[in-house]
């Protein structure tokens, strides 16, 4: 554990009487792929929402590269280098595939309102660079052809990939993927995991991903955290997690079709 990218200390999130996440302590090193798994309603997405600033935690802190980012606004956190996708795909409905990615590029096109509206050279240069970058990203996931299509008209799997690309457009160092394989068949899931692996290498990323099905992430994660009812019940490498009696208990009955 040399270079810690993301860590949390005693992170808790309560909604009224319900504790969705309780005393979460994670630590993710540079270029690792880390899984956050657990049965439905275990608090995985809530953990993501707290880390990315969508919720302000009830207790605890979030550190990004040793800096406390607890309670920062989501856009500030994205600016610092943490990007995310959503469990229920949230693409911009009225926009084309390319435009969706360009919104992700907005951070790198920061210009004044006038220079942007009047299309002044300084702005034009940034915009052109952003378009080129966006097209290059789309090319990586095989969406070049679809660039001009309406984003929501894409098939489900492509929408998921577009969401990842859109997040990559913000130039993140840490990518949070919320159930990227949801709704995919085992074959597609495995392909996706391989793709995530190449993404990590190509973009020098650290990846933290939520997955509901344990089998899917076994092969790709360096280590993983297991949540159940908001509590971290296990942490370790995939092999030890698979054998952990607490994990088996948590998944038993809930997910005996773990390999889907």
């Amino acid at each position, binding site marked *: 554990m040399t270079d810690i990218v993301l860590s949390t200390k005693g992170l808790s999130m309560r909604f009224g009487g319900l504790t969705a996440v309780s005393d979460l302590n994670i630590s993710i090193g540079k270029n690792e792929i880390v899984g956050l798994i657990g049965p439905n309603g275990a608090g995985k997405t809530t953990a993501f929402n707290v880390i990315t600033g969508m919720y302000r935690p009830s207790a605890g802190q979030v550190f990004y590269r040793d800096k406390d980012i607890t309670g920062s606004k*989501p856009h500030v956190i*994205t600016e610092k280098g943490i990007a995310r996708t959503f469990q229920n795909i*949230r693409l*911009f409905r009225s926009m084309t595939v390319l435009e969706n990615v360009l*919104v992700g590029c907005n951070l790198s096109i920061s210009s004044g309102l006038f220079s942007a*509206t009047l*299309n002044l050279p300084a702005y034009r240069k940034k915009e052109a660079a952003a378009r080129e970058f966006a097209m290059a990203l789309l090319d990586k996931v095989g969406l070049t052809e679809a660039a001009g299509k309406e984003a929501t008209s894409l098939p489900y799997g492509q929408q998921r990939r577009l969401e990842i690309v859109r997040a990559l*457009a913000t130039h993140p160092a840490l990518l949070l993927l919320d159930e990227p394989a949801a709704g995919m068949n085992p074959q597609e899931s495995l392909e996706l995991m391989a793709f995530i692996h190449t993404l990590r290498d190509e973009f020098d990323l650290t990846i933290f991903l939520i997955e509901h099905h344990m089998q899917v992430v076994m092969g790709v994660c360096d280590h993983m955290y297991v949540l159940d009812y908001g509590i971290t019940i296990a942490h370790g490498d995939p092999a030890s997690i698979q054998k952990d009696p607490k994990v088996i208990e948590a998944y038993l009955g809930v997910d005996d079709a773990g390999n889907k």
Partner: protein
Amino acid sequence: MKMNKNQLYTVVALCAILLFIVIADNCFDAFTLRVFNLCAIYIILALSLNLLNGFTGLFSLGHAGFMAVGAYVCALLTMPPELKEMNYFLTPIVPILKNITLPFFPSLLIAGLASALVGLLIGAPVLRLKDDYLAIATLGFSEIIRVLITNAQPITNGAQGLKGLPRFSTTYTVWAVAGVVVLFMVLLMRSSYGRAMKAVRDDDLAAEAMGINVFKVKVTSFTVSSFWAGIGGALLGHMITTIDPKMFTFSLTYNIVLIVVLGGVGSITGSVLAAILVTVLMEALRFLDEPMNFLFIHTGGLPGLRMVVFSVLLMIVVIFRQKGIMGGKELSWASVAAFRERHSRKGRPQ
């Protein structure tokens, strides 16, 4: 090349519009010309509201308030001292304002900026609210502005209003401003700012996660919209040459909301078409009021059957064609061509 052909079409169309404006200015009678110019002002107002309601997804009902700010600021700056003296016969005007007289264009700009400033001040707290709450809060602020204007007699001359404003809103002025606003909107929507606004409208959480400062985008949109609303209000004041607080009630906002809805929320060309359609229709239906005067008692200024028919027409549109004329899309040469292909009849645009 298709691209060049469309560009050529656009140039030809622009020339035609320009020519039409020149002809209108020289040949139309005073009444027709007034309606024609009113179209331009409503284009400005509709586009400024569409920026909020259509492109940023902020349902505001406060437009009349910003128009009032613009109209009053501009009027107070352009009115010569003698005119001010004539107007303020009940309560004398505050001495600072008494002797200020600026040319029209600087006044217009200051009016827009004043309105934008008010927009910024109101927007900062109100834009934390969403949907209906935002609508009702903006409506509230617009009413507060109106009440303040009514009561600030030494500045605004209160309920008496200001009469005999110089008629600065000429045909060329209003249409030039309308042209600038259309161009501004087109360019804005093509820029990263426009994309950010649309992203906020489509999904503000996802936009925030993309690093967009959603609140800042909302405030920017609100401020820019207020700026153009102020300009529109100032032009309106200097066209009908009289302003008073009663002009800027909710019904004025409502007219503009309807133009935006009718044209298609989030469509620039839609707003332009609807602004012209509604303004012309409002005047064309005026005949309905006249023969009816025998049957029904009418009092000064209150519209009757015309407004009923107008309301019914608009209700029908709202209920049966919610998307409006353009339904969020833009009119372009490509869409015109597609339309002609489908109908294979003569369907010239404009």
